[in-house]
């Protein structure tokens, strides 16, 4: 059974600081997704990573994928308050189903 583990589960940061969220998964997959969820809202797609070594950046967020290590990272650069949300990684199985990590609740403080 596919297991997806995120850490940390809770992250409190000061504005302007950098940090990385980690996502490990237990079985072979060639697709990994990062989603953002604001309280009471739906899941907003941030990144789709489709190959080993893939790196994507959008604003202050950068995601990478190492399929050999079964690891993806979401790096936050110079955090701002607007980034406060819960971030989920999700790993796709070969039948196109996805399994989510537990989520990382990020709070960025002024």
């Amino acid at each position, binding site marked *: 059974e596919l297991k997806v583990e995120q850490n940390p589960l809770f992250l409190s940061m000061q504005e302007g600081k950098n940090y990385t969220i980690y996502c490990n998964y237990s079985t072979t997959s060639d697709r990994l997704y990062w989603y953002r969820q604001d309280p009471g809202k*739906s899941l907003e797609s941030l990144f*789709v990573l489709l190959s080993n070594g893939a790196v994507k950046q959008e604003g202050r967020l950068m995601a990478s994928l190492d399929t050999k290590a079964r690891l993806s990272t979401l790096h936050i650069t110079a955090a701002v308050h607007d980034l406060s949300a819960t971030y989920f990684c999700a790993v796709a199985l070969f039948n196109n*189903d996805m399994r*989510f990590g*537990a989520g990382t609740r990020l709070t960025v403080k002024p």
Partner: protein
Amino acid sequence: EPEVTQTPSHQVTQMGQEVILRCVPISNHLYFYWYRQILGQKVEFLVSFYNNEISEKSEIFDDQFSVERPDGSNFTLKIRSTKLEDSAMYFCASSLDAGELFFGEGSRLTVL
């Protein structure tokens, strides 16, 4: 921009009642999904649907649950006899191919 729409946004029901949650996926998408999220917890896979049949379902998706695509546009999730632990946010998602899933805004189910 095309989007996945879900109704109702919030439903309150009594334990033992039947509930139907409705979703209109993006029109040219071929894969459809239901996920649920108990308040403050992780997003859990329920079922995937392709070519008018279930392609995979999780342990959560027991005999109390069913899905249907009755008219080529709607995709419904039915819970036959709701339990307290069915209270959650239910998300519908659709996908064109083996790529990105697009999620609806969710339907919050409260079972009393």
